[in-house]
């Protein structure tokens, strides 16, 4: 009995003590920072979160490598001069998120709280950055130039004042691809296969917007597939039976695209083929499926210069890019599109830094949202950055490519 009462007392005492501690809590406020975090007289510190481990570590390593190569080249040339006339070196802090949204969010907090970065720039992934978006808003820290084709990062600047995307959306890509069908300039029918999710849907919506008012019609029977499917044979057989003039093969999985084109070829169907950027590769898709020699017309889209393409072999931007990748980021694969995106994103961000009016995060975000440039390295001729267009991604134009003689080249249409 006595023992029981003792332990009861102990519990009350501990609880009371905890209550007191809790009551006296509430973290002290920072008292308002006098200086903008991440900016000193000689440096600008920025952060990035990309997958450096796991299934997509290649893409993440390339994305980071591209950004690093550009910033290091700028640093070697003396740094960035801000509005106060002082040249500063860019310091890039990077963390691995393994492509997990939860870790992306934690990396963002870590970059802001522990490393005190000015902004987080060029993170990779749709869900990963969608998870960060409300945190960026809560902390009022720029989440600039997100590497994702989803529309949500740029579409609503008033709702998401601290976030902006960079590259063209899937809708814009679908819309650009529609030009190929429209340019045939006669009544044509389009057979469609797309991924059975919102991304596949966005792509098709863009395409439908692109053919509005033209003589192009989409067959009602749109075929779909799941990313985990092992084959799309039956879908392609169904589409081939329609004998449509154009095949919009909006397949985002390389092995399934190979499967689709092989099947169409085996069935003796030879439509004009439209491919999304994900699965346009010559050595990865066209050659293995035999599509490169079989189909008369193959179109795809893009917005950056492909370094391995012979037509850019002596292009100064491409030469610089390859040199800098080799010098500063030898661990990254410079031929992955992510390396080029990371590089060009960094170049866009440096433009924003140069045009900042003051030195606060708000000044930076204003500048990030107003970059207009038609000379960002690695972007195709005619593709410009316009971050001021409300509701659209800063790079919102993709060019149409036609495949001929073993390589893609800019199509004359559009």
């Amino acid at each position, binding site marked *: 009995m006595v023992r029981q009462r003792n332990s009861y007392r102990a519990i009350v005492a501990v609880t009371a003590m905890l209550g007191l501690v809790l009551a006296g809590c509430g*973290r002290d406020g920072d008292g308002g920072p006098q200086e903008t975090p991440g900016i000193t007289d000689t440096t600008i510190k920025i952060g990035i979160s990309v997958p450096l481990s796991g*299934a997509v570590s290649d893409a993440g390593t390339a994305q980071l490598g591209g950004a690093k190569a550009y910033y290091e080249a700028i640093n070697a040339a003396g740094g960035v001069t801000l509005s106060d006339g002082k040249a500063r070196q860019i310091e890039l802090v990077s963390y691995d998120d393994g492509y*997990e*949204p939860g870790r992306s969010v934690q990396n963002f907090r870590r970059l802001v709280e522990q490393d005190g970065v000015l902004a987080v720039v060029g993170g990779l992934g749709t869900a990963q950055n969608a998870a960060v978006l409300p945190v960026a808003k809560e902390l009022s820290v720029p989440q600039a130039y997100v590497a994702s084709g989803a529309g949500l990062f740029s579409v609503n600047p008033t709702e998401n004042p601290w976030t902006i995307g960079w590259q063209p959306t899937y809708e814009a890509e679908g819309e650009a691809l529609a030009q190929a069908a429209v340019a045939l300039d006669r009544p044509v029918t389009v057979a469609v296969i797309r991924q059975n999710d*919102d991304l596949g849907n966005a792509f098709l919506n863009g395409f439908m917007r692109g053919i509005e008012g033209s003589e192009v019609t989409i067959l009602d029977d749109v075929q779909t597939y799941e990313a985990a499917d092992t084959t799309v044979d039956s879908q392609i057989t169904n589409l081939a039976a329609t004998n449509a003039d154009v095949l919009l093969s909006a397949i985002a999985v390389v092995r399934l695209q190979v499967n689709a084109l092989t099947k169409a070829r085996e069935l003796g169907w030879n439509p004009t083929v439209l491919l999304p950027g994900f699965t346009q590769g010559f050595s990865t898709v066209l050659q293995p499926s035999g599509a490169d020699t079989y189909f008369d017309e193959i179109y795809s889209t893009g917005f950056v210069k492909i370094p391995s393409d012979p037509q850019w072999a002596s292009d100064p931007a491409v030469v610089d890019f390859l040199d800098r990748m080799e010098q500063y980021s030898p661990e990254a694969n410079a031929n992955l599109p992510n390396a080029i995106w990371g590089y060009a994103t960094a170049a866009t961000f440096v433009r924003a830094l140069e045009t900042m009016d003051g030195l606060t995060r708000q000044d930076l975000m204003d500048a990030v949202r107003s970059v207009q440039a038609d000379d960002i390295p690695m972007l195709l001729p005619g593709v410009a950055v316009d971050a001021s267009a409300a509701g659209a991604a800063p790079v919102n134009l993709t060019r149409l490519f036609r495949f001929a003689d073993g390589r893609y080249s800019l199509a004359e249409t559009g």
Partner: protein
Amino acid sequence: MRRHRRWFTGAVLAGGIIVLAVFPLNSTPYTNYQIALVATYAVAILGLNLVSGYAGQISLGQSAFFGLGGYCSAIATVKAGWPLPASFLLACALPAAVGLVVAIPAVRLRGHGLAIFTLALPLIGVALAKRYADLTGGSEGLGARISQAPAWTGLDRDQWTYYVVLAIAGALFLLARNMVTGRLGRALSTIRENEVVAVSMGISPQKYKALAFAMAATFGGAAGWLYVYTIGFISPVEMEFLLSINLLAMMVVGGMGSVLGSLLGGVLYVYIPIAVGTVDPVRTTLLYGAILVLVLFFAPGGIARALHRAGDWLGGARAGSGPGPQRPSAATTAEQGVSPMTKT
């Protein structure tokens, strides 16, 4: 001696609780959320431990229940406007129901039938989450910032989140501990050791395996709720198969059939990538594998069992009574535990 130890354990527990209670007041939001994540994954691993560690069935579907619980909480609160406690109940109940429906046919399969069966769950879950984008937000995921500190506490959001997540996780750990040290745990370990013996004692392996699987799903769903409460977001990525594998690996490293091991698994799941990242993040997967192999080689029972052994050894040395008390093997525990039942 035994009483001494109990007192010691109690003191350690009380001290731990006080430290955990005071800790978030002076640490950064990043650290507080990080510890909330540890608790979250520990609950998911704890659920997995019930079905894999205690009942001996390999489940590769824990990420599906984790994601389902996450979607339950996000959809119920953001889309349907439910109060938080109701969303928590839903995040436990729906995975439990799904788990039971899946388990009833699956446990009839012999050997590792359940493993093959559960393999399908994350694949189906991801496809469904992407397809019904109106409800789930599709590939872009669904934001749900449901954690909000009540004004009277004077706490920041991260501190409040920390307390809520740790309190719920603590309650779930207590619940699991009581279950596995009671009748359910004895029945499960008997089944794991020898199904024929279990049947001869009147324990239905199928019934108990299905029950364990449903419990694992419930804990997985609860962990999904805690995740959304901490991160404020859920997407198909969180359901992916890789998470199931990682949870399973961390359970083995932490300690199969051990409540403490589940907690250690959560700690490792969150902190290994950070530790490796300071050296070379590219080697994270390699290191996961290396740790797994090393633990299986040198401490087959996981880190928790190794700690127990070390504790026993120290305890023995302190008392100066020769070799420390032998820790009963799983089989003898089962026999001791089941014997009262056989008498009835």
